[in-house]
């Protein structure tokens, strides 16, 4: 049976090759060394994480944070050289809209696999681990699409890894932020944070507890996201403090509905805060707006209506 370890092997080898490409660059420019080190540590987590103790894995995470958390990594966002720009335009004309097909193959296979993988069997057992079919189908889709694209476009063999590493370096430390925030949830669980906050919060709410608690969660998600500039960071805190103890624990709501729409409530906050500079402030500059908050002003009415809609959706759908 194929499980997540196969996916982790592929990802680990990819991060390892990003590290090696970074190392090759660091031989010319030493300031590229932190990038190489970061991807090497991440590769180690994927390739040998299962063989390390919890404490050793924890030290590995702290090392990743030390390398990635303090602005040491470089971002090669330099403008593309004109020759690659010309080559890309020529490629676009040559290959046409078929360029979308490999990229669209991935969601198609991920969805088909999710729905039908239980029909694939190997030696009497399921071919794919039934609890992980979506991620495994996604991995299979990526590998298949990559193989087809390689056969079709016939690039130099290292080109996909080199181009992948270039995008990865642009993403940088933010690549592990969601995983690290999910791990923060593990700490919240271990120390019982939800129970500690959920109790006092429920005392503050008016008698119609359920509707009030839903709004406390969605508005809390939006406000904390506005303060932090990032819905991912607000999610573990608000979900542990309000959604799990009150909405799921006391009122028996569906965690899938609450989690999914709770995150989208946070996105409403992202639309309303200058702290989310990438989305709201950078475009204002890109578009030469005199009003630094012009993009936010255009977004606020939609964001407020959708925050109300999200709250009602949770109230209606999670407690059906």
């Amino acid at each position: 049976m194929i499980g997540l370890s196969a996916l982790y092997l592929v990802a680990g080898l990819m991060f390892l090759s990003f590290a090696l490409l970074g190392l090759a660059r660091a031989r010319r420019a030493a300031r590229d060394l932190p990038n190489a080190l970061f991807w090497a540590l991440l590769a180690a987590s994927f390739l040998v994480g299962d063989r390390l103790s919890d404490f050793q894995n924890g030290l590995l995470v702290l090392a990743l944070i030390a390398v990635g958390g303090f602005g040491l990594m470089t971002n090669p966002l330099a403008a593309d050289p004109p020759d690659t720009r010309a080559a890309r335009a020529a490629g676009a004309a040559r290959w046409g809209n078929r360029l979308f097909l490999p990229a669209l193959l991935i969601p198609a296979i991920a969805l088909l696999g999710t729905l039908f993988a239980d029909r694939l069997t190997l030696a009497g057992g399921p071919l794919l681990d039934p609890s992980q079919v979506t991620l495994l189908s996604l991995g299979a889709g990526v590998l298949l699409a990559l193989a087809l694209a390689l056969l079709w476009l016939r690039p130099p063999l290292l080109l996909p890894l080199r181009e992948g590493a270039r995008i990865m370096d642009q993403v940088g430390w933010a690549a592990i932020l969601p995983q690290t925030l999910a791990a923060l949830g593990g700490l919240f669980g271990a120390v019982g944070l939800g129970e500690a906050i959920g109790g006092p919060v429920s005392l503050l709410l008016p008698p119609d507890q359920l509707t009030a608690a839903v709004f406390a969660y969605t508005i809390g998600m939006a406000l904390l996201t506005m303060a932090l500039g990032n819905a991912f960071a607000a999610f573990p805190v608000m979900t542990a403090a309000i959604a799990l103890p009150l909405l799921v624990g006391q009122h028996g709501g569906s965690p899938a509905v609450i989690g999914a729409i709770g995150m989208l409530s946070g996105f409403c906050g992202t639309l309303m805060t200058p702290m989310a500079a990438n989305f709201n402030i950078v475009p204002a500059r890109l578009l030469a707006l005199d009003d630094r908050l012009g993009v936010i002003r255009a977004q606020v009415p939609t964001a407020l209506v959708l925050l109300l809609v999200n709250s009602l959706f949770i109230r209606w759908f999670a407690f059906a």
Partner: protein
Amino acid sequence: MRGLSVARALRPNALALVGVAVLATGLVGGLDLHATIATLGAAFTKGRYVTAVWIVLPLIGLLEHAGLRERAASLIAGLRGATTGRILVAYLLLRQGSAALGLTSIAGQAQTVRPLIAPMAEAATPNADASTRARIRAHAAATDNIGLFFGEDIFIAISSILLIRAFLGEYGINVAPLALSVWAIPTAIAAFLVHGARLWRLDRRGWR
């Protein structure tokens, strides 16, 4: 010079803050340092699938090298619409739809809004004064953000969906990615209706 650049470099970012939050939560919550680090290590290792989705990058890099973004740009340049509002509604639909298929990077503020959508939207309202033109450009940027945010979570392997899954897993609640992403669909439809209605109204009432 060198000292200055190091001082500027050592500025903690969001990742560092999460690290501090992890240590503070464990220590204040009654775990010792060893147990805090071990809990972090166990949870991080269990959630590796959240980061594993980056395996798509070599393919995306290859396709972008072959002109994927330029192709997306020429598709967008072909959007037909007689009015500013209609152009933006068509772009909203395209952005939500492509993000729902996991194609979040083929469009964006730098890739498509600045070079294509903003000029097209401006050109569709001729004889506008400077502040009206600025307002149209702000709405072009807003439409991109709204399309992205309320489209991407429909894709089953986007980081936010996997973050939700891994977080709930830490509390012993197991949900399939598809069970989460289908619940992004009602809000996606609402976002299209709400924002589309605003753009339609701006067309009728005028953009100033």
